[in-house]
Every structure is written in structure tokens, then in C-alpha cells.
């Protein structure tokens, strides 16, 4: 065992060694270690290289705020995770870890050249350094910078782990199980309320785990924690460890991410790795404690320089001495206790350097007793040591004058710049903050929450425990319950206070100081001052220009230091400058936890028609359409898409095609006022439409633009069978409901979605009638022309039969109850064999409709197209006094000249245009060219040449003119034509 591990100390299991690897080398740790504590126990401080300068770095903290010690962890194929915080990852047998941002090795890294060139990489370097020449950006700068910067490697394989999610309703949710949180839970649990206590760490107890000498009600801290957790368990309180409250949302909804298996040697097969909880709490108590701030001085980032509180945690929780010979630099009393505890455990503390003039007498006494030199009114001007700190230079400060410094040898440097209340979750609620002279504290609340303990700036266990109990009681009272106020007696308490600083004063060139604020993003004090000098005034601009606080640690350590320096540079008080916004998640959270069960097949609902199994069995290629899976085309052996679609098109035009149209939106409009409702909703006149007939219906928005279309059948005087586009079904029903409920509640009409109740099969082709006729009963064929509908039976199945066409051929749509859909389809396929029936998919449907100039709403229209623009004026009931959108058809913009109008395009060279391609009138005009429209539909057709539709300004008046479509490989010429390319006289429909 290494000499840095203290026998019998800490909460680790000294009888349970665990081996793991770091950069290929095997190390021994103990059960209960984190990767960081295990490496430190082996004397390893160097754990990674920094983001920008590739400077050597070690763990600076002992918790989830860690910015430096980011490692890659691997648990086999697909289970590589970058940027795992070594201070959080618990040790387990066989864990494989590696350092990041280094090549070829962690101790010798070529990328560290960036550190020598640091003048180039100052704030805003992205914007300034690489301006010229422009072409260098894409080819040189960007790839090189992207290669050198970045944090870790992305995993390359899909994550094979499972992630779970749950909802929870609880009366009181307490975040943080330190002394304040435990006291709050005890108070809240006393009257039978449902209480949940969560903590991000593996063990509850918070700071008490790092302060074992404190006595509460006569018990040593750890015994007290155990006893209270036992009481809470007995009272039915839900205790959740390894559970991070990642975000605080409206109305006391919190997201919790619970880590379930990453700490286990061999996780149970199939067990979820993490579970996301969505918690709705009656009352919330935030007892998240405070985060220690670094001090800002040259070389404050060397491995071995760490927060004093972290050293104390490594000592007591893990039994690890972070060094034999620590020095301390502090502006807060708490660091003295870290120094004392290390000294009491065999470390030789080189000196305590205190920035303050008069350290507290009892602390000076404590130092004297242990033989530790204290240097009040001192600063640190620099540190030395390449891969580990070797010495620190301390210098006296008189007023603003820095005196002669001296180097103090040390093997680690513990720093404390005071403590920042952890306000992240509170800030998620838009709670306001107030400046107390040293830091920000929570002020006005927007949610039913309490903030307790160090999280609102209190220090010392007696105060924190009393505050936690009071907060828990207030939460209970907020629920309308009562309880009594508990009190605690604390001995060996460690109260304290401190001051906040900007950069520490130095006698060196401040412009050359490598004094880091944001360790993760390599932001220095100099960068902040430069940003202010270059005109950044808002803290939000300073943040973005320097990237301070923008890394995955979200500025947990850096925000207040950055603010202090920005305020100083701006000559303002910190509260006038203000704090940037904390955003969820509190700590980095895996994508898997957010996805939960919603991945792969369950990511999004896939709707399948009743005929889908036949399509699958018959080799259909599918495409997704508005959550539906639709057969796209049915390739035969050796056919590509183009060949298959052309064959399907020709077969349909020559004889008979069959198409699954079940996804069509269907709405039943029923009731005595149904016809009045239809007259008001749709542009067309409906009053004179006889039962048994159907009509193309056009739906506008109130703004006059096309929203949807479809063929609508009147089955009886009070019943309309409305069809909508596949993607528009829900939207159209909502729009209809809106008018019916809120504008015309007097109309006696019922609207029912029947999309999924009917399976719809379309038959098209010159032989459609001959093939269908023998299968139908209940239709008078002498009175069933194009645009008719009837209730009848088809192949013995109850059906609604429509005679209509979306292809230009004689066509029918047979609707049967969905459960009969497959039976209908197979019966039609069987009967159609005599006519070489050809199943076709959506692509052929598109080609056939485009040849006839039938539009697809949403493809040939885009929300700015009126009926007039689309050539659909014939669908407007001009005699109707009103319908939705009618008034807008006479708006000045709608009647103006030069609107984009839907026309056909034929390319001169017979090439296929690209949908979305822009159209110009003169290809030789100077850039930027005036674009007059774009291609909306483009297909290979059955006529031996491609066809296209486009919207073009004033298109109807440009028939026969040539327009130009500039493409990367040259300019295409195309002639403007009618949109009807095939059978313009509709001869085939009459057959």
C-alpha cells in the first residue's frame, strides 16, 4: 500500500482492494474509492491535459464540480464514455480509464506547444486570429483547431445500455443530504408527509463525511449521520443516493438522474444503467451546500494545486493524504482546518499563506501548536513544477505594494478563495439573487421552495443544522401540516468566514500571468480583462467572448471569480455586473438518461396500415410519412427505384394498379347542420352536392392560404365522409373543432376522426371498373359516374366505395373497416390477376398525380399559396357569402400582381430538376441574383422525359417562356408549361 494511503482511515474498505487501469497501467485502490482518490493514493496527481493549452492538470476538487480530472472510461464494446469526472467515478474491479487531450503521452504531449503560443489563444482568438485569408478557414484553421481542441473522444458505437425513467409525486423533496438536508428531512418526516431525500454522492452525509471530529448531540459526526439515516428510513423517507437533481422546472417539477450500475463490478444483466426521475413535489428544500472557489494566481493550475476542502475530503472520506508537504493559500478560515487535519495525520505543512491581515487568533493558535508557519497579508505570485507543483512563491503585501517573495517548497498547494453557495437549481426557477458583499445569496423565490444551510451562505454546523430543521418545518407547514422545531447541540464546530478576491496581487507582469479562472475552458484573468478592454460590457458578452463558465462544469468554480474580475475591470460593483444564467443540467448527464425508453423502435410511434404485413412480405421498400410507414415502391429482382417506379406507373396506365391509401386522413362530419358546417369550412359549395356524389374540397386558413385538400363524399344529407392529406388529418380535425367549439357552437354537428377505422385501397387503370364490378354489391352502375360514392359491399365486405382519381385513370377507393383491410387487399389482388394487377407505392402515386398536375398540399404549396396561385379558383364557391379564408382572397397582397403561381416546367436538355432548386429569369445577372421561384415537384415520367412543377412569379403570364435554374454543375434551361402533362382533356376518366 502506498504511503499516501492512511491505514484504517476513511470510509473506504481497507480489506477490499480493487484494481483498475489508467493509461494502460494497473493500479490498486480500495472499495469506496473514486478513480481520483485511488490515483492520489498512488501518488498520481497528473490526470489530464487541458482543453486549449494542453497544460498538465490534476484533480482540483473532490466532487462533481471537477473541471480538470476528466477521463475516458470503458466497460467494453459500446460502453466508452468520455469526460467522466475522476472525482465522481467510483472504483470497480477491472475499470479501464484513460487520460484525455494528450499525444503521444500524458507526460509528454506535443499539443502543449499551444501553451507556449498562449498569446495567440487569448480571448476571442477565434474571431481575430483566423480572419485572413478567408479560404484558409475551411481548409486549414478549422480542421486543425477542431483536431487540437475538444474534450475527449466521442464514442463511436451505439450505446448498448438500457436507461429507465419514472415519475414520482412526493410531498417534500430535499436535494442534498448533508447536515442541512438531513435536518430538513427529519423535520419534514415528523407528521407522516411523504418525504424524498436525494444526494448525488454514493453516501449521504455531505460535508460531515469530511469532518468526522464534529460532535452532534454528543455523537461523532459519522455515528450521528448513521443514526439519523436510520431514523429517516424508519419514518418511511425515500433515500436516494447517486441521484443528481439536474434541473428545477415549473411548479416544483425536478429532474433527477439516478446512476444505478456504473459502480458495480458486474451489473445484473439487463439492469438499467441510469434512471431519470421526473418528480413533482409539493415543497422543495434545496440543501445543496456550497462549492469552494479557487484563488486566481499565476500557476494555480499545476497538478498538486487543489482546493483545501478537497484535500480534507480525500483525507477523511478516502484516507488519502494528497501530499507529504502541503502549502496552503487561503482567504477563508476553512482552509486552516484542512491544514490542521493533514498535519495531524503526518503531513508537514510548509506554510499557511493568508491573504487577510488578521487571521482569527484561535486559528493562529492551532497553527502554532502544530508548528505551522502562518504568513498573513501575503500573496502567491507564482508556482513552479512541470508535472507537479514543487514550490510556491509567497510575497508580503503592504497596501498595493507586493514585497520581495520567497519560494516555499511543497508537493501540493491547497487553496481556498471562500465558498460559493450552490445556486444552480434555484437559478433554474428564475429565483433572484442578492449580493452580500462577498457572494450571491438566494433572494426572491418563484417556487414553493426553501433554501437551507451553506446553500444560503451559512457556515458552521450549528447554524446549518438549525437552518435545515427550520427549512424542513417551513416546508411541512407549507403543506398545511404541523411539527415541532428540533434543536441540535454541536461541539468541535468549525465556523468560519472569508473574503472574495480578484486576481491575487503580483510583482510580476500581470499580462504574462497564467492565472486560471475557468480551468476546463482554459480562461485566465487576463482574458477577462482583455474582453472588457475590447468593449464587452455585459457579463453575458464577457462570458461568450472568453468562454468563461461555458464548459461542462457550467462555471461552478469560475463564475464568481470571473465576475469579481470583470466588475473590477469595468469599475463597477459585482451586483451591478450581475451573474450569468445557470442552465440545466446541474452536472453533465448522459443522453441515454434523457432518452430513457424512447429509443430505437420506441423512439417514435410507427403507424402501420392493416395492409402493411402484405407489403412487407412482398418486398416493399418503405418510407416514413407523418409517423406512418408507407410502401414506397415494390422492386422486383434487379430493379432499382427508378426502374420499379417506371414499371409500376406503366402498368397502372396500361391496365390496373393497386395502392394502399389507408393513411389518408378521414373525418366524419355528421349532424343536421353538417352541410352548413361544410359550407363554412371549405371553399367549395356543398348545398347542391347530392348524396351519393363527391367533390374535391379545398380548405384555407383564415389568411386565405391553402391548408389542406381532399375528396369529400356526401353519403346522406347529414353525413359527409371527409378525406384529408396523410399528414394533415389531426391538424384539420383540430381546426374544424376550433371553429365548431368556439365560433359556431350553435351548429349541431359531430366531428369524428375515422382515419384508423377505415382501410382504404385505391384501384386505378383502364381495367379498374371491369375488375371491380363483379365484386361489388349494392351499387347502381348506371348511376355511378366519376365522383360518386356509395355504401355497399366489396368482396363481401361492408364498404364505402368512392369513384375518383388521383392518377388520371379510371379510379376507385374502397374503404372497409380496418379489420377487413388485409382481406380486401388480398381479394383484390387475387381478382386483379386477370388484369396483371400491379401493386404500387407512394412514389408511383406521386408521379401519376404529377403527370396530371394534381397538387400535394405541403409540397407544391407552402403556406403562402392561395387557390388562385395554385390554379384552383374553380374550387371556390363564389356565390357563398362566407367561408374560412374568403375575406382574405380580396386582401391587397393576395390580389396584387406578380404572385408566385404554380406552373409546369420541362427542361430543354431533358434532365431531371432538383426539388427546391431556385429559378431565375436571367442567368447572367450579377449576384446575388433575383430568384423568382423554386421547383416544387420533379419526377421521371411515363412520357419519356422528366416533368416538374414550380412556383414562379407571374407564372401564368409566362407560359412558353424560358427560365433558368442555376445548379452547381451548370445552368439548366426550362420552358414554362401547364401543370397538366398527361391527358389534358380528361378523356381517360370518362372511359
Amino acid at each position, binding site marked *: 500500500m502506498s504511503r499516501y494511503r492512511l491505514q484504517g482511515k476513511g470510509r473506504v474498505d481497507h480489506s477490499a482492494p480493487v484494481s483498475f487501469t489508467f493509461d494502460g497501467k494497473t493500479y490498486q485502490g480500495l472499495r469506496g474509492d473514486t478513480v481520483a482518490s485511488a490515483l492520489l493514493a498512488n501518488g498520481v496527481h497528473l490526470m489530464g491535459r487541458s482543453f486549449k493549452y494542453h497544460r498538465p492538470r490534476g484533480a482540483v476538487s473532490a466532487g462533481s464540480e471537477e473541471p480538470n480530472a476528466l477521463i475516458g472510461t470503458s466497460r467494453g464494446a459500446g460502453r466508452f464514455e468520455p469526460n467522466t469526472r475522476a472525482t465522481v467515478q467510483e472504483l470497480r474491479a477491472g475499470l479501464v480509464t484513460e487520460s484525455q487531450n494528450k499525444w503521444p503521452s500524458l507526460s509528454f504531449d506535443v499539443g502543449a506547444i499551444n501553451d507556449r503560443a498562449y498569446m495567440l489563444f487569448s480571448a476571442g482568438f477565434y474571431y481575430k486570429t483566423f480572419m485572413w485569408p478567408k479560404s484558409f478557414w475551411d481548409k486549414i484553421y478549422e480542421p486543425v483547431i477542431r483536431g487540437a481542441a475538444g474534450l475527449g473522444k466521442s464514442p463511436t458505437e451505439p450505446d448498448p445500455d438500457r436507461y429507465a425513467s419514472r415519475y414520482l409525486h412526493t410531498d417534500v423533496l430535499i436535494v442534498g443530504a448533508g447536515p442541512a438536508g438531513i435536518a430538513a428531512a427529519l423535520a419534514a418526516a415528523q407528521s407522516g408527509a411523504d418525504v424524498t431525500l436525494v444526494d448525488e454522492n454514493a453516501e449521504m452525509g455531505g460535508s460531515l463525511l469530511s469532518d468526522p471530529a464534529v460532535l452532534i448531540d454528543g455523537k461523532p459526526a459519522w455515528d450521528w449521520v448513521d443514526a439519523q439515516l436510520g431514523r429517516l428510513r424508519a419514518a418511511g423517507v425515500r433515500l436516494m443516493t447517486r441521484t443528481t437533481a439536474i434541473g428545477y*422546472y*415549473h*411548479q416544483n*417539477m425536478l429532474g433527477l438522474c439516478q446512476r444505478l450500475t456504473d459502480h458495480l463490478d458486474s451489473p445484473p444483466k439487463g439492469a438499467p444503467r441510469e434512471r431519470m426521475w*421526473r418528480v*413533482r413535489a409539493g415543497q422543495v428544500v434545496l440543501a445543496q451546500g456550497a462549492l469552494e472557489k479557487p484563488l486566481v494566481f499565476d500557476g494555480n493550475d499545476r497538478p498538486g494545486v487543489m482546493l483545501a476542502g478537497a484535500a480534507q475530503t480525500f483525507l477523511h472520506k478516502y484516507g488519502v493524504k494528497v501530499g507529504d508537504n502541503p502549502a496552503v493559500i487561503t482567504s477563508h478560515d476553512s482552509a486552516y482546518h484542512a491544514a490542521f487535519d493533514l498535519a495531524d495525520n503526518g503531513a508537514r505543512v510548509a506554510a499557511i499563506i493568508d491573504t487577510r491581515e488578521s487571521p482569527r487568533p484561535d486559528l493562529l493558535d492551532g497553527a502554532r501548536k502544530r508548528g505551522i508557519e502562518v504568513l498573513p497579508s501575503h500573496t502567491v505570485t507564482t508556482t513552479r513544477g512541470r508535472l507537479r507543483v514543487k514550490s510556491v512563491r509567497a510575497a508580503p503585501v503592504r497596501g498595493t505594494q507586493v514585497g520581495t517573495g520567497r519560494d516555499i517548497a511543497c508537493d501540493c498547494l491547497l487553496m481556498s478563495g471562500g465558498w460559493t453557495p450552490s445556486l444552480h437549481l434555484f437559478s433554474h426557477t*428564475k429565483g433572484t439573487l442578492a449580493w452580500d458583499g462577498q457572494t450571491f445569496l438566494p433572494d426572491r423565490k*418563484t417556487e414553493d421552495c426553501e433554501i437551507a444551510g451553506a446553500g444560503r451562505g451559512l457556515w458552521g454546523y450549528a447554524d446549518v443544522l438549525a437552518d435545515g430543521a427550520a427549512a424542513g418545518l417551513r416546508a411541512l407547514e407549507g403543506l398545511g401540516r404541523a411539527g415541532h422545531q428540533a434543536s441540535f447541540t454541536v461541539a468541535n464546530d468549525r465556523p468560519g468566514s472569508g473574503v472574495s478576491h480578484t486576481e491575487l496581487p503580483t510583482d510580476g507582469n500581470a499580462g504574462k500571468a497564467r492565472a486560471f479562472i475557468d480551468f476546463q475552458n482554459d480562461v485566465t484573468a487576463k482574458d477577462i480583462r482583455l474582453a472588457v478592454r475590447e468593449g464587452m460590457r455585459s457579463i453575458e458578452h464577457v462570458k461568450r467572448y472568453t468562454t468563461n463558465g461555458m464548459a461542462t462544469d457550467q462555471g461552478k468554480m469560475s463564475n464568481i471569480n470571473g465576475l469579481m474580475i470583470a466588475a473590477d475591470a469595468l469599475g463597477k460593483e459585482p451586483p451591478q455586473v450581475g451573474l450569468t444564467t445557470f442552465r440545466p443540467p446541474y452536472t453533465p448527464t448522459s443522453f441515454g438518461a434523457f432518452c430513457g425508453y424512447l429509443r430505437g423502435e420506441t423512439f417514435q410511434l410507427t403507424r402501420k396500415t392493416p395492409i402493411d404485413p402484405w407489403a412487407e412480405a412482398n418486398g416493399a421498400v418503405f418510407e416514413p410519412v407523418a409517423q406512418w410507414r408507407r410502401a414506397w415502391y415494390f422492386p422486383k429482382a434487379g430493379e432499382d427505384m427508378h426502374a420499379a417506379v417506371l414499371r409500376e406507373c406503366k402498368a397502372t396506365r396500361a391496365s390496373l394498379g393497386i395502392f394502399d391509401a389507408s393513411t389518408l386522413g378521414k373525418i366524419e362530419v355528421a349532424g343536421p347542420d353538417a352541410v352548413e358546417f361544410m359550407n363554412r369550412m371549405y371553399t367549395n359549395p356543398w348545398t347542391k352536392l347530392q348524396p351519393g356524389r363527391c367533390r374535391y374540397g379545398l380548405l384555407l386558413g*383564415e*389568411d386565405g392560404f391553402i391548408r389542406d385538400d381532399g375528396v369529400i363524399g356526401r353519403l346522406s344529407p347529414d353525413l359527409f365522409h371527409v378525406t384529408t392529406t396523410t399528414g394533415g388529418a389531426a391538424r384539420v380535425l*383540430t381546426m374544424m*373543432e*376550433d*371553429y365548431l*367549439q*368556439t*365560433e359556431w*357552437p350553435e351548429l349541431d354537428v359531430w366531428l369524428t376522426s375515422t382515419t384508423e377505422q377505415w382501410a382504404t385501397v385505391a384501384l386505378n387503370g383502364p381495367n379498374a371498373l371491369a375488375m371491380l364490378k363483379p365484386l361489388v354489391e349494392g351499387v347502381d352502375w348506371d348511376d355511378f359516374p366519376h365522383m360518386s360514392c356509395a355504401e355497399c359491399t366489396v368482396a363481401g365486405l361492408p364498404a364505402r366505395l368512392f369513384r375518383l382519381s388521383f392518377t388520371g385513370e379510371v379510379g376507385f377507393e374502397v374503404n372497409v373497416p380496418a379489420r377487413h383491410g388485409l382481406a380486401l387487399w388480398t381479394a383484390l389482388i387475387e381478382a386483379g390477376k386477370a388484369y396483371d394487377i400491379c401493386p404500387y407505392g407512394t412514389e408511383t402515386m406521386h408521379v401519376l398525380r404529377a403527370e396530371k398536375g394534381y397538387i400535394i398540399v405541403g409540397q407544391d404549396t407552402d403556406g403562402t399559396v392561395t387557390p388562385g396561385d395554385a390554379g384552383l379558383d374553380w374550387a371556390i364557391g363564389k356565390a357563398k*357569402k*362566407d367561408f374560412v379564408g*374568403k*375575406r*382574405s382572397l380580396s*386582401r*391587397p397582397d393576395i390580389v396584387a400582381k406578380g404572385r408566385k403561381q404554380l406552373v409546369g416546367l420541362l427542361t430543354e436538355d431533358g434532365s431531371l430538376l432538383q426539388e427546391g432548386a431556385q429559378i431565375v429569369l436571367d442567368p447572367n445577372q450579377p449576384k446575388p441574383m433575383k430568384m423568382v421561384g423554386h421547383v416544387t415537384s420533379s419526377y421521371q415520367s411515363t412520357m419519356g422525359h422528366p416533368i416538374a412543377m414550380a412556383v414562379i412569379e407571374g407564372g401564368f403570364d409566362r407560359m412558353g417562356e424560358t427560365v433558368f435554374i442555376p445548379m452547381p454543375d451548370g445552368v439548366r434551361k426550362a420552358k414554362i408549361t401547364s401543370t397538366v402533362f398527361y391527358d389534358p382533356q380528361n378523356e381517360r376518366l370518362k372511359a
Partner: protein
Amino acid sequence: MLLIHCPYCEDSLPELEFTYAGEAHIARPADPSALSDEEWRDFLFIRTNARGPHYERWRHIGCGRFFNAIRDTVSDRFLTTYKAGEPRRPLTNEAAE
């Protein structure tokens, strides 16, 4: 995630069950053809865009009903909800409860 009170279901339910449906109390004119272009423009496009309490319409997907609400656009809190067709609720303390 917000909890929204559906005045038809008489229950507070998760935001996911609801969709926003624009500003409330903008009735479709009985005879649009009688409106000038400017009046019709205002009906179509001009909205309050309030900072603070805002009268708006929501739809509860669960029951399919449209209803009215007063929501504070700064705090995102619903001050009250009430059925479609009911008159505009005043901004009283009661509504703010």
C-alpha cells in the same frame, strides 16, 4: 413542466396534454366582407404580445376542448382557466390565486 387546469375535466394535468391555440377573445367577425382591409388585417395578424398576464386559448388534447386562460408570460404561470364562450375574466386577485 407546467400543470394546467382543464375547466372541462376539472383537473390539473401535465402540459404535455395541452396545446397552445393563440390569443383569446378574438371573435371571428360575423360578416368578414363588411370589414375594411385594415380591420381584417388587424383581426388576422395584430396581437397583444403582452408582457405579463395574457389572455389566451389552449386545447386539452385529452378531452378535445378549447378553453381560455390567463397566463403570465413573464413567470409562465397560469393565473386562471375558464371555458370557451365565457366572458373575459377580470384580472382580480382571485384570478391571480
